[in-house]
């Protein structure tokens, strides 16, 4: 007796469509019985066995056979409900999956709490720390082409003089010489900071003052929010008490954003300055963590500081210089150019009161030009290294949380084996079961991420108060990053790949006739565990590289910080009053 099942399967192997395994098995079974009876009848009627076999094989090879069976055999999506013929779309019934997922979480509150807390802690800590790193290290100044900006640093082995401001890099004399010989910069400006008394008697109220050279706002290519900003003509020797430019925040705080503020007088250290303009809301200064209220031209400094003006003292370090590099110039070339003329600059600005030893040191000073796209900051020197350490630790915490979660999911496997086996027995397709697992793990990831976002705000505030309340909250960008991260989790390739592999494995088991449904069920649950882990990794990675695509900037700053910033930090520490 011929092996009719094998004959039929060989004929079906030529089909150009994907057959549903269950339907194919049923058709093979039915046709094999039919062919066996036809064969027996033919032989009984006296047809030679070989001839009977040839005839029936010929029928299986007829071209219309596979075409006719296609509607019966072709794999199709399962119905929305058992007994309903209508086929379902890809996402049909997802609501039911979500409802079941929520019910399962509520039924196992201990598991849900541990899983969500693990994710929330990991994601929240990473996000909060990244938020601070973003502010301190990554965010560029809100000006046109910030990548062209560079600051001038002074390198020395000790100097004699007064550091009267945070910007204790240059003296006025040095600034004037640099301004004359700045071949690498298309624009260069000096600036400093000082607290100025707003009160005109009685209790002192201080405003954060920003000293700027006349071309400061041109160098930053900034347009006023209201009125006008300083021009070169505003900054001339002996200008005395002239105009003042307000920051947008101060304008709103002090004057309620009134449009008729222009021309009004503002008292600073008891002197009347006329308000000439307001800076854009996006600009709050060049220093990370420090804002300004009012900007004054450098030439007004002698008027405020009376008998001992900083401007006239060659040993008072109170200025910083920032400029816009010419096209084609890099910081290395600008450094080389400034150092080529450094001898002349320091000879011309040598303080007359220096003794021989101080003169020798002074004449050995050199310059270095550093990128300033992200502004300038002492916070970087003081806090970036600890923040990186914290980020590393919190990354490890997240990894541990993920491993814990995967273990929890695996531990649940034994409890869910029976459920999965039952559903398989009742006719659930493996695709449907995998979707259920996917929805459950997504649910955990989304709730964990949302909790992490909330936790990040609290942790972020804690870190800010630790650093000194100088960093403004910037949570909107972080939330955007997290939202993107959740999206990544929903669509990212890693866990889909894992689930797909699991589906393939399960399908092979069924086709090969291994009836170990427990093993199959375990593979689903294992897939869900790995899925959550991969999803959480994805969340963390996306949160880190997330908002505004700052991943590349992040890496660039890390490498830059390792080489350049540490040296500058050392100099700043050594550069106080000696």
């Amino acid at each position: 007796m011929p092996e009719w099942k094998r004959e039929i399967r060989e004929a079906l192997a030529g089909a150009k469509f994907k057959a549903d395994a269950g339907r194919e098995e049923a058709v093979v079974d039915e046709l094999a019985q039919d062919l066996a009876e036809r064969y027996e009848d033919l032989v009984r009627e006296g047809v030679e066995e070989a001839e009977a076999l040839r005839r029936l094989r010929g029928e299986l090879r007829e071209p219309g056979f596979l075409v006719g069976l296609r509607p019966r055999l072709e794999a199709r999506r399962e119905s929305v409900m058992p007994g309903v013929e209508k086929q379902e779309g890809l996402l049909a019934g997802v609501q039911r999956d979500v409802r079941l997922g929520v019910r399962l979480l509520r039924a196992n509150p201990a598991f849900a709490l541990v899983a969500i807390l693990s994710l929330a802690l990991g994601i929240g800590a990473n996000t909060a720390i990244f938020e601070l790193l973003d502010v301190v290290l990554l965010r560029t100044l809100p000006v046109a082409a910030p990548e062209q900006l560079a600051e001038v640093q002074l390198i020395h082995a000790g100097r004699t003089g007064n550091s009267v401001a945070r910007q204790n890099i240059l003296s006025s004399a040095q600034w004037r010489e640099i301004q004359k010989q700045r071949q690498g910069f298309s624009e260069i400006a000096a600036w400093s900071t000082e607290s100025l008394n707003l009160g005109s008697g009685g209790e002192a109220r201080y405003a954060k003052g920003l000293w700027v050279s006349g071309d400061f706002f041109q160098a930053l290519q900034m347009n006023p929010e209201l009125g006008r900003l300083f021009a070169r003509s505003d900054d001339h020797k002996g200008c005395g008490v002239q105009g003042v430019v307000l920051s947008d925040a101060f304008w709103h705080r002090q004057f309620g954003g009134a449009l008729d503020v222009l021309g009004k007088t503002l008292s600073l250290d008891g002197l009347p300055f006329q308000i000439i303009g307001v800076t854009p809301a996006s600009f709050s200064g060049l220093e990370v963590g420090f804002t300004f209220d009012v900007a004054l031209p450098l030439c007004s400094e002698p008027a405020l500081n009376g008998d001992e003006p900083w401007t006239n003292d060659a040993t008072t370090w109170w200025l910083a210089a920032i400029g816009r590099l010419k096209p084609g110039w890099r910081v290395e070339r600008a450094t080389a150019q400034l150092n080529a003329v450094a001898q002349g600059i320091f000879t011309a600005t040598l303080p007359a009161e220096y003794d021989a030893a101080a003169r020798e040191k002074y004449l050995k000073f050199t310059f270095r030009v550093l990128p300033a796209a992200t502004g300038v900051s002492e916070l970087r020197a003081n806090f970036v290294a600890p923040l990186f350490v914290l980020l590393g630790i919190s990354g490890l915490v997240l990894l541990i949380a993920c491993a814990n979660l995967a273990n929890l999911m695996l531990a649940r496997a034994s409890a869910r084996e029976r459920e999965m086996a039952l559903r398989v027995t009742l006719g659930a397709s493996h695709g449907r079961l995998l979707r259920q697992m996917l929805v459950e793990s997504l649910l955990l990831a989304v709730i964990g991420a949302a909790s992490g976002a909330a936790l990040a705000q609290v942790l972020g505030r804690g870190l800010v108060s630790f650093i000194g309340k100088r960093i403004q909250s910037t949570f909107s960008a972080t939330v955007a990053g997290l939202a993107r991260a959740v999206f990544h989790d929903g669509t990212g390739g890693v866990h889909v790949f894992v689930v797909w592999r699991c589906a393939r494995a399960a399908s092979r088991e069924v086709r090969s006739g291994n009836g170990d449904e427990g093993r199959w069920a375990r593979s689903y649950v294992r897939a869900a565990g790995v899925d959550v882990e991969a999803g959480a990794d994805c969340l963390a990675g996306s949160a880190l590289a997330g908002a505004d695509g700052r991943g590349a900037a992040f890496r660039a700053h890390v490498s830059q910080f390792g080489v350049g910033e540490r040296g500058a930090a050392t100099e700043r520490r050594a550069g106080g009053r000696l």
Partner: protein
Amino acid sequence: MLIKGFARELKKGSAELLILSLLEHRARHGYEISKLIEQRSEGVLQFNVASFYPLLYRLEERGFIEGRWVEKARQRRRRYYRVTAEGRAVLKEQRSAWASFVGAVNRITGEGHA
């Protein structure tokens, strides 16, 4: 050749009616239906595996018949088909249409008019 093609078209056109008619009063399995068609037509109408089962499955997909696996003592598990309510209605219509068609053809081609 032309006659053969004509007979094939007639067979194709009447196949559904034949199957539904044989299932009208009792459930039968595929080979039984196929064998009965051959016997009752005295060998004029024959269906092979490649043409019969696609037809049978199509009727099932359209809801005119339904099949179920039946296991009987000391017998192989077989798939039996029975006509559905919708199939009965279709059978009634097809039978009536066929009778009037054959009557009309006979009236034109029949010996009575010769």
